[in-house]
């Protein structure tokens, strides 16, 4: 299989402009003859659906929540990056591009990242025009904060609710189009399969989560903006419903899955308290602007943190990475926390925690200023832990948060299955092996507002004239299979609940394919996962019927796909004999314990092709070539 990234020729800075000019256009009157399905209503999905509808396309949008406004983008706290250089501190498109490539440990596609940095400024303008209430300075201009992995202040924010405000902006644009009748919205609808006709993506199979009815929808192109797969770990900061089904089903229909092993473990989450725990809560990384991370210098020190004197504390990030200190990138901060805890310096009841301490910031600017910056985060922390972070340092621990891997896409954000486009976290393209903070929102909106509206036109102009409807045999087949799968899960009537099996899988994944990975562990995981999958298909219990609201059935369907996908993730992790970004293979580290990349052998995107049930997936490689960046060992010292 030949992978064509379709990156335009010419100098990096001119590629996107040139490409836009080269793309085919569809005249305004003809756009209404084309229909597009958008799955997912987060930042990428909602912005794409709204923008395409504004252009004149007929859009159908699907989400599993009861309203498109609830997609998980809403939970992003800290902010959104943009190369505006409003702070006059030396930012530029090139610097944002460079930081993102470096942050991703040189494992992303150069041209895509450059384009992301290029369109970043327009995103801010668009959101301001929509009425997003970004934080401002007294003079009335937009305010910025700093984020991990950057030495400039380029992050725009709306208190600690930036994702919410950006999503509500996109949702308002989407709502306007729904009101105008250009978008048909399907709430509480879950995609169960992709339909491919003559090699082109032509529709989806969907379950109405209220009536249970399984039916299909046809269109001239399909966009998946269905987010990431961090819930493969069971415990993650993702919303409970986040799942891999849409992209995994597309994978089984031929779409290549790229870099599934690149997962991000976020350094600042509230530690786990017990095995009933259902999810992990993130505390925005922006807290690292003012909080200092430390552990006691003595192992197992159980004293009240406030009575541990300064010289008995180890501010390990400041010590190890003086240039970036507490703002070291996420992968590095997470790993350092794990190291400290594994070595016995961890704090809290479980010993799985480190302190995030604001005392210095209180002394420097006062509690009121800190409260203005992070008040809602402090309140949230107190609500969950019952401890007051204004008087006792917070305790934090890393947790699965974001997945850089996803379906492979070309420069047009189209997968190798023609007509199937993939946006936002669901694709692999921009963050390499590690995503920088405040870049997910940027990418989701860049894809939806400013990339797909151009690139999809090219596909539709070339291929959109072949119309199929849901009577086609491929639709009938996909629908029948989805119905069968549902029936099968309901008929097992075993002894285990869906959650109990999901927890078991999550445990294996966290243990062997989490923050640190090694060959032996991954091999163990690859042995355990099929056993758990067997257990699921033999012994799961799903009560109730398919013709009603049935949460167990919904969860079972998602878990069934996680159970297959997990194997692909471990296979990828085992295959990549290097450490890079969020993928840390313990065998490959520098003498100082930093990730040791192997550019000689692994400077490529791993693209996995599904080969049928039980067959090993086939690896295809997209080589990564860097024209304007010199590959360097990442250093934040």
């Amino acid at each position, binding site marked *: 299989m030949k992978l064509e990234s379709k990156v335009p020729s010419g100098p990096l800075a001119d590629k996107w402009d040139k490409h836009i000019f080269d793309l085919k256009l569809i005249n305004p009157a003809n756009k209404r003859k084309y229909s597009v399905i958008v799955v997912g209503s987060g930042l990428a999905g909602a*912005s794409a659906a*709204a923008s395409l509808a*504004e252009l004149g396309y007929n859009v159908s949008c699907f989400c599993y*929540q*009861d*309203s*498109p*406004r*609830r*997609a*998980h983008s*809403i*939970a992003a706290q800290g902010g959104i990056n943009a190369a*505006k250089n*409003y702070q006059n501190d030396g930012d530029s498109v090139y610097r944002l591009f460079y930081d993102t490539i470096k942050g991703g440990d040189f494992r992303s596609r150069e041209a895509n990242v450059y384009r992301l940095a290029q369109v970043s400024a327009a995103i*801010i*303008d668009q959101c*301001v*025009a*929509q*009425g*997003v*209430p970004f934080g*401002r300075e*007294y*003079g*009335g*201009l*937009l305010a910025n904060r700093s984020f991990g992995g950057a030495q400039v202040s380029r992050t*725009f924010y709306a*208190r600690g*609710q930036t*994702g*919410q*405000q950006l999503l509500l902006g996109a*949702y*308002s*644009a989407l*709502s*306007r189009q729904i*009101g105008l009748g250009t978008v048909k919205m399907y*709430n509480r609808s879950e995609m169960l399969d992709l339909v491919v006709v003559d090699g082109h993506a032509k529709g989806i199979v969907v379950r109405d989560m209220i009536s249970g009815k399984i039916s299909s929808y046809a269109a001239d192109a399909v966009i998946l903006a269905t987010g990431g797969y961090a819930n493969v770990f069971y415990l993650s900061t993702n*919303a*409970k*419903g986040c799942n891999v089904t849409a992209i995994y089903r597309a994978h089984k229909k031929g779409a290549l899955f790229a870099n599934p092993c690149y997962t991000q473990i976020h350094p600042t989450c509230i530690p786990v308290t*017990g095995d*009933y725990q*259902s*999810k992990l*809560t993130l505390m925005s990384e922006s807290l690292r602007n003012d909080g200092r991370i430390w552990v006691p210098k003595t192992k197992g020190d159980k004293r009240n943190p406030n009575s541990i004197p300064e010289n008995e504390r180890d501010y390990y990030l400041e010590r190890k990475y003086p240039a970036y200190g507490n703002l070291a990138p996420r992968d590095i901060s997470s790993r350092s926390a794990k190291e400290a805890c594994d070595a016995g310096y961890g704090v809290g009841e479980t010993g799985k925690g480190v302190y995030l301490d604001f005392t210095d910031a209180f002394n420097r600017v006062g509690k009121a200023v800190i409260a203005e910056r992070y008040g809602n985060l402090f309140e949230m922390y107190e*609500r*969950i832990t019952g401890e007051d972070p204004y008087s006792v340092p917070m305790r934090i621990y890393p947790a699965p948060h974001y997945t850089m891997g996803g379906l492979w896409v070309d420069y047009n954000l189209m997968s190798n299955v023609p007509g199937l486009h993939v946006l936002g976290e669901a694709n692999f393209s921009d963050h390499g092996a590690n995503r920088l903070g405040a870049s997910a929102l940027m990418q989701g909106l860049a894809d939806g*507002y*400013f990339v797909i509206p151009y690139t999809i036109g090219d596909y539709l102009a070339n291929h959109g004239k072949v119309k199929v409807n849901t009577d086609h045999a491929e639709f009938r087949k996909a629908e029948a299979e989805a119905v069968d799968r549902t029936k099968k899960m309901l008929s097992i009537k075993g002894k285990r609940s869906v*959650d109990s099996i999901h927890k078991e899988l999550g445990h294996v994944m966290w243990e062997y394919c989490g923050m640190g990975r090694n060959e032996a562990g991954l091999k163990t995981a690859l042995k355990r996962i099929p056993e758990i999958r067997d257990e699921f298909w033999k012994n799961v219990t799903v*009560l109730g019927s398919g013709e*009603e*609201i049935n*949460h*167990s059935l919904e969860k079972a369907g998602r878990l069934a796909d996680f159970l297959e996908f997990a194997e692909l993730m471990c296979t990828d992790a085992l295959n990549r004999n290097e450490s890079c970004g969020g993928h840390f293979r313990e065998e490959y580290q520098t003498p100082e314990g930093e990730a040791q990349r192997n550019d000689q052998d692994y400077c490529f995107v791993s693209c996995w092709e599904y080969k049928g049930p039980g067959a090993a997936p086939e690896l295809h490689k997209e080589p990564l070539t860097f024209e304007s960046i010199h590959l360097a060992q990442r250093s934040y010292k």
Partner: protein
Amino acid sequence: MKLTLHVWRQKSRDDKGRLEIIEANNVSTHMSFLEMLDVVNEDLIAKGIDPIHFDHDCREGICGMCSMVINGVAHGHQKGTTVCQLHMRYFNDGDHIFIEPWRAKAFPILKDLVVDRSALDRIMRAGGFISVRTGGAPDGNAIPIPKDDAEKSMDAAACIGCGACVAACPNASAMLFVAAKVSQFAYLPQGRVEREKRVSAMVAQMDAEGFGSCTNHYECEAVCPKEIPASMIAKMNREYCRALKKETCGESAKSWAGA
């Protein structure tokens, strides 16, 4: 802890529904309220009983999906807290806890504690936006906005659209929800261009959905997990009066929204 739950069970929209008693054993004080229900559900599943259905997703108080009335209070008695963020440390061993769905004519019950809130989406479609299309927006700093206005706008924008205000109001009014959106835009220069049309269209849709009117009970403010003040409703009323004066209410408002 051991608790006795009195939970609203209703198989479907057409079922009559009833409170059923379910015992919750082994409840830890560290659990969130929803985690307590997860544990109860695991128990029920093991006994072959259909688990309690409730809406939830983010479990961090931001998506607005979780929705239940606990001991008569929407989202429970902890101020400024969604039920997913409510923790069991605020309950005592032996407590009886009553758990019911949002109740309002405009929010039909779908199953157990799951209700249909699509009426709120339809209000947003009527006018909860600024009519700008993608592209061509002026520079973000082109219009300076006083910090205080931006902050007030953000206070309003914090609404998570959960519908607790409706559930708490004896009139099942959605005024706080609508007022939050109207105010968010009314505080910003970008939002003022369409201010009259917006408030007229949203209020018209709110009435059409069967939500009641505000008679100043302040229950909405009391339960709002984002502590949006009822003074927003006063702001919306001022906006509405303005619109009345300009005669943009009624039919003309509708034609704008659907145009």
